[in-house]
């Protein structure tokens, strides 16, 4: 939504995401320069085919309703106003494309490295990241254009032809032997991304709201079902939201409540000061023990440190959130108080600054320093994600508007956990060859396991007690 109070934080956050997408990831890959051999040859064809599939996936997504996931309020009031739909939807689409581009760069890099670690190197990381970013960007905009073409009759022919030409260019380039992870191929992908963007931007002026409305209605139904733990209904709504026909709700689809215990453990609750102190102490002790006992160049140690940092961040930021009159995981943005907004912006800037610093240092330093930098990124990223999970961010506000605070609370937990762990996991898998089972002492594995299990029990015990008391 466009309100004056939100604009500064929104823009800065977009800038932060863009910096991550465009600068951090390629250089993150570049940190592995000279650690491993720089030859590679086996997987470029597979990558080219994958790019074709990514573009086709965009078209497929567009046929099923496109990349937009907006609330009924947004559709009714924003898209139902005389304001240009292009102006309303384009910022949302750009943010979506940036997020997917970032994810694509990570996935492409990780997959290639895991597939052929021996032949991985600086140049490959950079080129693959660039090609993946361009492919994902193209796919998102192709999805938007396809959505318009398939749901708005007046646009079907013109936009459809444009989409077909773009797909033909990608397929033609691959079958003509152009490697998309080389400069020539990247130039072609840049043109494809530009053409996809132009096509979608032009088509969005006539964006139809029917598929968006149907999806939003299904999502609201899903949200309601989720809150009532009607998981069968959730699955049906999920299918409806993606415009698939609902499947049978017969007994074979019955979903036992296996997720319930986990759900309860990640629910947002306020704990007492005593428990807060105990948890803080436990995680700090765990972190200190890892520093003292662990080999900091071992991936599994980095993983444990990041997990502890995440939990400490959540504990510490809880106090900040309380000071700012924020209920846990409930964001008042964009109404937001100035304090909350400043918290969001400063957190984003701090994370971006640290990431940027590490990247620069890592790029010019030798490898041991780069390895340390990667670990700093992991730990700081975990801490930052935890703070953001508490204070909220503009994209969280959008999620909140769509799904409501209860569901977003859980999503935030998942995001805060998965985001930094992905970075750490990448580091572990690539740099420390964790998947190849480097020799690590059994005692260290045991220590980490005991520490994390203890932390989990301590952090959730009070919740369990409260739940049981309420049930009683």
């Amino acid at each position, binding site marked *: *939504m466009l*309100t004056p109070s939100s604009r500064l934080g929104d823009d800065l956050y977009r800038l932060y995401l863009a910096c991550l997408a465009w600068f951090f990831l390629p250089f993150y890959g570049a940190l592995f320069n000279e650690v491993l051999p720089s030859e590679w040859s086996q997987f470029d064809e597979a990558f080219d085919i994958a790019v074709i599939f990514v573009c086709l996936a965009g078209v497929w997504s567009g046929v099923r309703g496109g990349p937009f996931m907006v*609330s*009924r*309020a*947004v*559709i*009714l*009031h*924003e898209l*139902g*106003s*005389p*304001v240009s739909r292009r102006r309303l939807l384009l910022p949302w689409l750009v943010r979506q494309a940036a997020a997917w581009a970032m994810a694509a760069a990570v996935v492409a890099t990780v997959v290639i490295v895991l597939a052929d670690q021996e032949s991985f190197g600086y140049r490959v990381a950079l080129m693959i990241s660039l090609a993946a970013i361009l492919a994902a960007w193209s796919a998102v905009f192709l999805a938007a254009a396809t959505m318009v073409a398939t*749901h708005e009759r007046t646009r079907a022919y013109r936009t459809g032809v444009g989409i077909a030409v773009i797909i033909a260019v990608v397929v033609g380039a691959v079958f003509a032997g152009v490697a998309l992870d080389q400069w020539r191929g990247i130039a072609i992908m840049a043109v494809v991304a530009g053409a996809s963007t132009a096509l979608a931007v032009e088509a969005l002026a006539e964006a*139809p*709201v*029917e598929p968006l*409305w149907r999806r939003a209605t299904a999502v*609201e139904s899903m949200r309601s079902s989720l809150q009532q733990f009607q998981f069968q209904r959730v699955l049906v709504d999920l299918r409806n939201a993606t415009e698939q026909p609902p499947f049978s709700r017969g007994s074979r689809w019955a979903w036992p409540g296996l997720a319930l215990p986990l759900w309860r453990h990640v629910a947002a609750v306020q704990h007492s000061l005593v428990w807060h102190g105990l948890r803080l102490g436990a995680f700090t002790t765990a972190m200190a023990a890892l520093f003292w006992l662990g080999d900091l160049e071992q991936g599994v140690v980095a993983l444990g440190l990041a997990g502890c940092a995440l939990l400490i961040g959540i504990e510490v930021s809880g106090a900040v959130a309380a000071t700012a009159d924020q209920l846990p995981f409930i*964001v*008042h*943005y*964009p*109404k937001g108080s100035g304090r909350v907004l400043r918290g969001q912006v400063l957190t984003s800037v701090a994370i971006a600054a640290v990431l940027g610093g590490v990247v620069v240092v890592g790029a010019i330093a030798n490898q041991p320093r780069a390895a340390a930098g990667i670990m700093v990124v992991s730990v700081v990223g975990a801490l930052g994600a935890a703070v953001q999970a508490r204070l909220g961010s503009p994209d969280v*506000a959008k999620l*909140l*508007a769509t799904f*409501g*605070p209860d569901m977003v609370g859980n999503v935030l937990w998942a995001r805060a956990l998965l985001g930094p762990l992905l970075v750490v996991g990448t580091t572990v898998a690539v740099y420390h060859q964790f998947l190849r089972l480097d020799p690590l002492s059994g005692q260290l594995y045991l220590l980490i396991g005991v520490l994390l299990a203890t932390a989990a029990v301590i952090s959730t015990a009070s919740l369990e007690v409260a739940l049981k008391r309420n049930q009683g």
Partner: protein
Amino acid sequence: MTVVLSDVRMLFADVHALRIDSLEFDAGTSTVLVGPNGAGKSTLLLIVAGLLQATTGRVRIHGAEPGSVQARSSVSFAPDQPALFDDLTVADQLTYIARLHDVDVASTRSQQLIDALDASSLLTKFPRAMSKGQRQKSALIVATARPFDVLLLDEPTTALDAGSRTALVAAIESFVDDGVSVISSTHDDELIDAAQLQVHLVEGRLAPTGDEEE
């Protein structure tokens, strides 16, 4: 005529949700759509609002297609399930929606409805902190925070108390006096009795009884 439907067909899979040969709504009239559940009342409103596209047929609002910029400028819709921004207070929503229409919120009819429904206490509330009835009141108020000359109301009184229902009926009459075409779907006798015209729908078709205009 403000709203004109001709040869409109709406198919959901193989089901005919709506089959209307001809139907028109005048400016300055209050019309209620009545009929049993599944008769197509909400579908008709969604089509006029531009949120659903008829499978075949022609719908025009002041000569423009539903969903066009011209139609969006003149049609306001309050669906049966309130569509509110969860992260804005009602007051913020009113201001925001008025800004989207490039008008000052004070120049809209929202204050009139706030007074009628005695809803000033809702202005500082977030939707998630409201009861079902309060959400419905808020949604109705929000629907008036913009210029409109066609007002579509889908089951607008289902969650309202008796006093609020009467107040809403009075407010609708004043909108109609201002030249607004108000089209409501309802099962509420008070709203039906107050309407100038009734359109009966059965299984997506206009029924031959009542005061419907065809």
